[in-house]
């Protein structure tokens, strides 16, 4: 067994599971901000119910986002100690900023938001959700700054074999950063919007109670998803230029720049295979196909007129069937970006075999199996709970339930205490 391969597999698994959850987090929180703002501004009870129902799903989904995020953060030190040793001076900075100014605040605000219903004034409670959303976007930004630095290391100089930070602004103007950030954020909006549309479609198709409520969220979800897919496509194609410029080997090594680069690497790091596996670009092709397919969401938008989308029924089925697509595309997109920088941790600067921790393959294998099973089981359980809560409808979500009212989901009433 090979420690390096196991460590790469573990990174790929954790990161993939992480993205499935954080994309939904980022997408849903944006829509929740809109819903709760509408509630506070209009005072309309319907918006409160929408906020509670979708907020409940958001909060359940958030759990696995944290759990996998914590593993991601510690994984750098556990499995990739060479990364901290050689480039920690530069790469560590955006990650440290992310944990302090984004993750830390986001969780603090969310805890207060969950328990703040009926306790805080409406404006203060809404402000907390704005805090959660802003820090969630800040988190995405700093993580993308860190990731883009691995794709295209800038703003550093190597002294005594260790990278030192020389120009932080270069990290923020990294050509690998902005289009990718736009792409990822709009993909998250697409995922959140389509999730909302698909769950609403399920309720409308089954004619469950609260048709009016789910009609609203269907419209919000569909319009968001349609706008987002256009942004996803735009930012996606806009990336090819800058990424091809800074990572000539990413999409295969047949360009003249790639050949020059590989010759340079061979002279500096010795001969080796400097091309990423073909697999990553196969996935990229599929992702682009999914992107075009989801572009057809625009065809459903005119059907919102006079509720044809609901009356015709089959568009509801289309939305439900389309739900897995953004998740598959998210994973494929990340594989293309991350596997595409192979064999480098930091492109052209630190090869993966120098970055991996010098630990025994057995220990690494145990860690891979253990954490994959743990996170996999939790992810599946989490989705089952999400599905059950989505199906249960908006009658009385536990989130935001008035304290005096005995919880309806408890087998027996729970008076004040004991």
């Amino acid at each position, binding site marked *: 067994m090979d420690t390096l391969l196991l460590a790469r597999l573990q990174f790929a698994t954790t990161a993939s599971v992480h993205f499935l959850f954080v994309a939904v987090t980022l997408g849903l929180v944006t829509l929740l901000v809109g819903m709760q703002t509408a509630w506070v501004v209009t005072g309309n009870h319907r918006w409160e119910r929408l906020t509670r129902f979708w907020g409940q799903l958001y*909060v359940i989904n958030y*759990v*696995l986002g*944290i*759990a996998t995020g914590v*593993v991601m*953060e*510690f994984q*750098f*030190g*556990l499995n990739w*100690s060479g990364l*901290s*040793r050689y480039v*920690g*001076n530069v790469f*560590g900075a955006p990650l*440290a*900023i992310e*944990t*302090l*100014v984004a*993750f*830390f605040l986001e*969780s*603090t*605000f*969310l*805890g*207060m938001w*969950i*328990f*703040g219903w009926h*306790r805080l004034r409406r404006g203060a409670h809404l402000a907390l959700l704005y805090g959660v959303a802003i820090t969630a976007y800040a988190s995405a930004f700093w993580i993308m700054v860190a990731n883009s630095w691995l794709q295209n290391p800038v703003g550093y100089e190597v002294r005594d074999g*260790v990278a*030192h*930070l020389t120009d*932080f602004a270069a990290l923020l103007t990294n050509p690998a950063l902005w289009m990718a950030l736009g792409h990822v954020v709009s993909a998250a909006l697409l995922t959140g919007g389509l999730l909302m549309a698909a769950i609403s479609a399920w309720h409308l198709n089954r004619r469950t109670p609260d048709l009016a409520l789910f009609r609203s969220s269907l419209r919000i979800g569909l319009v968001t998803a349609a706008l987002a897919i256009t942004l996803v496509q735009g930012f996606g194609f806009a990336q090819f230029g800058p990424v091809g410029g800074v990572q000539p080997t990413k999409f295969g090594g047949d360009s003249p720049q790639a050949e020059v680069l590989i010759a340079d690497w061979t002279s500096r790091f010795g001969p080796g295979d400097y091309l990423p596996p073909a697999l990553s670009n196969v996935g990229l092709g599929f992702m682009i196909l999914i992107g075009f397919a989801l572009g057809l969401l625009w065809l459903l938008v005119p059907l919102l007129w006079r509720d044809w989308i609901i009356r015709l029924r089959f568009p509801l089925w289309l939305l439900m069937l389309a739900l897995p697509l953004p998740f598959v595309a998210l994973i494929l997109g990340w594989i293309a970006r991350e596997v595409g920088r192979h064999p480098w941790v930091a492109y052209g600067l630190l090869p993966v075999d120098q970055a991996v*921790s010098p*630990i025994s393959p057995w*220990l690494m294998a145990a*860690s891979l199996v*253990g*954490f994959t099973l*743990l996170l996999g089981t*939790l992810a599946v*359980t*989490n989705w089952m709970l999400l599905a059950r809560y989505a199906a249960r409808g908006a009658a009385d979500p*536990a*989130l935001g*339930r008035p*304290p*005096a009212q005995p*919880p309806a*989901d408890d*087998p027996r009433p*729970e008076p*004040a*205490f*004991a």
Partner: protein
Amino acid sequence: MELAWYALLGLFFAGYLVLGGYDYGVGLLLARGADAPRRRAALNAVGPFFLGNEVWLVAAAGILFGAFPVLEGELLAGSYPAVAAALAGVILVTAGVQLRSRPDSARARAAWDRVIVVGSLLAALGWGVVLAGLLQGVPLRADGHVAGVTHLFTPFAAATGLAVLALVVAHGATFLTLQLPTVEGDRLRPLARRLLLTAIVAVGAATVAGLLSDRVRAAAQRPAVGVLLAVLLVTALLAARAALGRRRPGLAFAATATALALPVLLIGATLWPYALVSTVEPSASLTVTDAAASGPTLRLLGWLTVPLLPALLGFQAMCLWIFRGRADGRAPVYW
């Protein structure tokens, strides 16, 4: 500047031990067989603070990576099994607490409660062993990497793991006497006092194991400070026990919180100027300055994060203030 960042790292990890500590303590106390409403009430006493408590660990890890990258890599990879166990525990507690009330069936909730117990156990033992590993030194070779992980398995590490576990349970019980409605809090008082006694014995045992360990004695640069702080820790626990006896749960909680924070200070002060002491190659030992990121990185982090520190701590304080007071029937129930 390195010292300031080292202190900040210590502050956030100590904050995690204090705040996460009572989460895990409350989690472990779910194992004592209370009925379902009591278990739920205990978790909701942690309620609004839970998410804000766990992230102190995330922040500490962020500072460790950003400001002390070399220490981060060698400490985590060199204590792999302990860190992995602690991490698994943290995840189980995070998922368990937030999801346990989502299923309706009593059986599913009881199963989630067991997940929380196991997670709390792993987290307390795991971080205890990591702290012991720092104090007894690691086989850091001249090439800068830690050799193997068997160095963790010592009587001192086991004793420290158990001591942290005992501290966490006693801290959690003290938290509940402070936070639950008065009647329930009073019922827990005898248990909390017994647990504090256990913690005193466990901390004493870990101290003796440390004094007997050659590696700890070799690694300690200031053994006297270490012993003094251990004595202070025991004093804090005695004070907590006395305060509980006089029905002063707030004072008792302050004392157990001090006891949870002291191990971090103890390690930092005892090893200073070193951050990671090598047991095999004295020249390979990392001082705090060696372990720190280079000047430009620390300056950048300082400019970007230090002005925000008051906001970070301020919002946490705001959470404490909004949800102050015992968890009564008017408090929202969500976990």
